[in-house]
C-alpha cells in the first residue's frame, strides 16, 4: 500500500531516497504519480499543503505585482492536495493544431511538438478530468434535441464546444486531491508527503544534475529527498520561483543559464461584457447560455475564430461565450429597429445578451516573474510579477468580434455591439482565467526556452517540468486537459528513461 505521510512527523536530517520525486500535488503531480503506478519506480510526491485549505500554507504564495492590472499572486491558486483544481471551473477543450505552429505574425510562437504528438493522450486526460467521451467539434450531432447552433453562414467564426469535468452528478468539477487520494494510497511504491515544502533544488557543482531536494515544514522540520529524477509540478508561478531561488550553484538559478526562467508569464484575460449579441429571432439555443448534459457529457457552446480566419487576419485565438441578458439604451433600440427593418427581418422578439471571452495574448519576454529581497516564512524569496498587456491583443480580439458582427448581419440573424475600445475600458472589464502559463516554456533551443520537447530542463540532466508553465503559446483553450496530456506523454518518457 502507498502511504500518505505527514512531513511534520519526519525527523530533521532524514534523507528520503526514491527513483522519482514529484514536487507539487495538483492535477499534474497527481496524474503523473497515477500514470507511473504500474511501474517499478519508487516515487515520492511532495505536497506543500494538506488535504484542505490552510491559511499559513497559502500565505507562502504571497508576492507582489507591478504594471497592468492582475489578481494577487496569493489569490489565483490553491496550495493543498489537488492544487488549483480545488477551485477550477472544469472547462475542458484541447488546443488546436494551429496553436502549436510557428506563426509569422506571432513572435516567439512554435512548439517543438505538434498536436499529433499529444492526440493519443487526450482520452486518458479526459478520463482523469471525468469529462466523458470526447465530443467537442462533433457535439452538434448529439445536441439536436436541445437546440440548433447559430446559422452564421460562411465567415471567420464558428460554433465550437467546451466539455466539463465532473466528479459526481451533483459535484462539479473534479477536485483532484479529494477524488484521487484513495487511488494514490493504492499505489504500492508511492509515498505522498503532505505539508512538505521544497525550498531548494540542490545541484551538483557544475549545475547539471539535481542531487537532492531540500524540504521544510512550517513547524521547522528539515529533511532531504534524493531521487534519480525530479519533476516540478507546482504550477506556473511556483515552478519558476523554485528554479530562480535555487541559485547557490548557478547564480541566475537552476536551469536558467540563458535568463529564460520566469519570462513569458501568461494568463487568459477574460474581458467581461465586451459586446452585446442581438439575435433578431429570439433566444439562442440553451447550450450557448449554460452547461447542458447529454450523452454522458456536459457541454457548452462558444464562438471561436476559425483557423483560416486566424491565419488570414493574423489574430490570436479566442473563445467567445454568450452570457446574461442585457437591456438596450435608446441608441441600441434605434440601431436594432433600423437595421432589422433595412435587412427586411422582424426583430419584434429579438434577444440581447452580453458576451464574455477567454483571450490569447502575445508571448512577451518582459511579462515576467523575478525574485525580490522579501522572504516567506520558510526563508524563500518572494516573487514580483511584472505584468504587461499589449493594446494590439485587444485590437485583434476586437477585429474578431467585428467579424462575428459581420456574419450576423450577412446571415440576417442578428447584429453586434462592441462595448470596449480604449485601454482603460478593457482594463476596467478584465477578469482572468487564472491559467498560469509560459514561465518555463518549451523549446529545442536553450536560448529560447527552459525545457526541451521531453519537458526536461535544458542543461540539467534529471530535472523535468510538468504543467502549463511549459506552454510556449497559449491558445484560448483551458489548459488543464492539455497539460494533463503533456503529463501523460512525460510519464511514457520517464518509463523509458528511468531504469
Amino acid at each position: 500500500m502507498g502511504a500518505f505521510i505527514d512531513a511534520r512527523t519526519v525527523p530533521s536530517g532524514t534523507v528520503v531516497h526514491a527513483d522519482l520525486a514529484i514536487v507539487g500535488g495538483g492535477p499534474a503531480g497527481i496524474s503523473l504519480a497515477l500514470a507511473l503506478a504500474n511501474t517499478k519506480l519508487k516515487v515520492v510526491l511532495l505536497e506543500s499543503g494538506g488535504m484542505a485549505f490552510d491559511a499559513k500554507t497559502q500565505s507562502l504564495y504571497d508576492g507582489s505585482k507591478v504594471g497592468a492590472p492582475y489578481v494577487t499572486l496569493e489569490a489565483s491558486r490553491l496550495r493543498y492536495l489537488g492544487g488549483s483544481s480545488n477551485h477550477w471551473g472544469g472547462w475542458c477543450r484541447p488546443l488546436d493544431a494551429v496553436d502549436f505552429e510557428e506563426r509569422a505574425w506571432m513572435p516567439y510562437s512554435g512548439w517543438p511538438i505538434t498536436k499529433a504528438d499529444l492526440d493519443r493522450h487526450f482520452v486518458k486526460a479526459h478520463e482523469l478530468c471525468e469529462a466523458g467521451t470526447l465530443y467537442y467539434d462533433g457535439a452538434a450531432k448529439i445536441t439536436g434535441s436541445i437546440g440548433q447552433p447559430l446559422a452564421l453562414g460562411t465567415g471567420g467564426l464558428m460554433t465550437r464546444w467546451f466539455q466539463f469535468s465532473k466528479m459526481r452528478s451533483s459535484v462539479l468539477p473534479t477536485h483532484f486531491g479529494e477524488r484521487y487520494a484513495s487511488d494514490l494510497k493504492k499505489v504500492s511504491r508511492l509515498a505522498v508527503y503532505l505539508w512538505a515544502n521544497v525550498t531548494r533544488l540542490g545541484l551538483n557543482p557544475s549545475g547539471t544534475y539535481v542531487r537532492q531536494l531540500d524540504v521544510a515544514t512550517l513547524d521547522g522540520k528539515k529533511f532531504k529527498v534524493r531521487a534519480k529524477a525530479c519533476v516540478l509540478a507546482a504550477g506556473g508561478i511556483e515552478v519558476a520561483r523554485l528554479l530562480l531561488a535555487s541559485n547557490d550553484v548557478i547564480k541566475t538559478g537552476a536551469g536558467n543559464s540563458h535568463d529564460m526562467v520566469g519570462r513569458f508569464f501568461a494568463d487568459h484575460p477574460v474581458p467581461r461584457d465586451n459586446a452585446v449579441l442581438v439575435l433578431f429571432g429570439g433566444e439562442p439555443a440553451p447550450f450557448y447560455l449554460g452547461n447542458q448534459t447529454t450523452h454522458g457529457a456536459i457541454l457548452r457552446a462558444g464562438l471561436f475564430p476559425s483557423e483560416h480566419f486566424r491565419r488570414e487576419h493574423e489574430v490570436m485565438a479566442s473563445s467567445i461565450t454568450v452570457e446574461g441578458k442585457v437591456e438596450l439604451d435608446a441608441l441600441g433600440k434605434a440601431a436594432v429597429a433600423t437595421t432589422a427593418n433595412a435587412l427586411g427581418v422582424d426583430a419584434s422578439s429579438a434577444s440581447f445578451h452580453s458576451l464574455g471571452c477567454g483571450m490569447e495574448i502575445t508571448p512577451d519576454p518582459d511579462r515576467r516573474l523575478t525574485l525580490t529581497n522579501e522572504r516567506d516564512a520558510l526563508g524563500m524569496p518572494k516573487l514580483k510579477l511584472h505584468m504587461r498587456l499589449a493594446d494590439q491583443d485587444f485590437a485583434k480580439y476586437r477585429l474578431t468580434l467585428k467579424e462575428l458582427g459581420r456574419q450576423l448581419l450577412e446571415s440576417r440573424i442578428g447584429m453586434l455591439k462592441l462595448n470596449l475600445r480604449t485601454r482603460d475600458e478593457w482594463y476596467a472589464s478584465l477578469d482572468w482565467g487564472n491559467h498560469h502559463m509560459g514561465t518555463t516554456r518549451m523549446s529545442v533551443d536553450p536560448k529560447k526556452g527552459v525545457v526541451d520537447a521531453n519537458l526536461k530542463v535544458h542543461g540539467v540532466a534529471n530535472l523535468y517540468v510538468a504543467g502549463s508553465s511549459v506552454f510556449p503559446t497559449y491558445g484560448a483553450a483551458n489548459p488543464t486537459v492539455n497539460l494533463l496530456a503533456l503529463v501523460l506523454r512525460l510519464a511514457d518518457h520517464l518509463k523509458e528513461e528511468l531504469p
Partner: protein
Amino acid sequence: MKTVSRRQTLWLGGSAAVLVAGGVGGRLLLRKRYAPTPYDDLIALAHDRDAAAQIGETVLAEVDDFEPIAMAVRLRARIAGRPLATALTDDVAKGHLVEGGGWVLPEMLGLICALAAKAAG
C-alpha cells in the same frame, strides 16, 4: 334602463372625432420637421428618420470628410436600384461595415443614417 338621447349621441360622436383628429394632428405638429434635401430618397429608405438620425450622429463621429451630396451619389450607385436588404447583405458579404456608437452596421445603412443626421442639422 336609462336611454341615450339622439342629441347626446351626436355630441359624444363629435367629441370623439375632434379628439382623434386633434391627436393625429398634434403628433404631426409635434413631429420634427426636416427641410428638403437632395438625398431625401435615400433617407426615406430608413423606416424611422429620427432613429436613423440618432444612429447617424454616432456614425459621423467615426467617418472623416463626410460630404452629403457626394456621399449620396456614391450610395445611389452602390445600391444600383436593388432592394435595400439585398444591397446591404451583398455589401456586408464584402466586409463593408461601419461602427456607430459601438454598433457594427452595414456600411451603406450607416451612411444613410449619417445623411439623416446631416439633414437633421
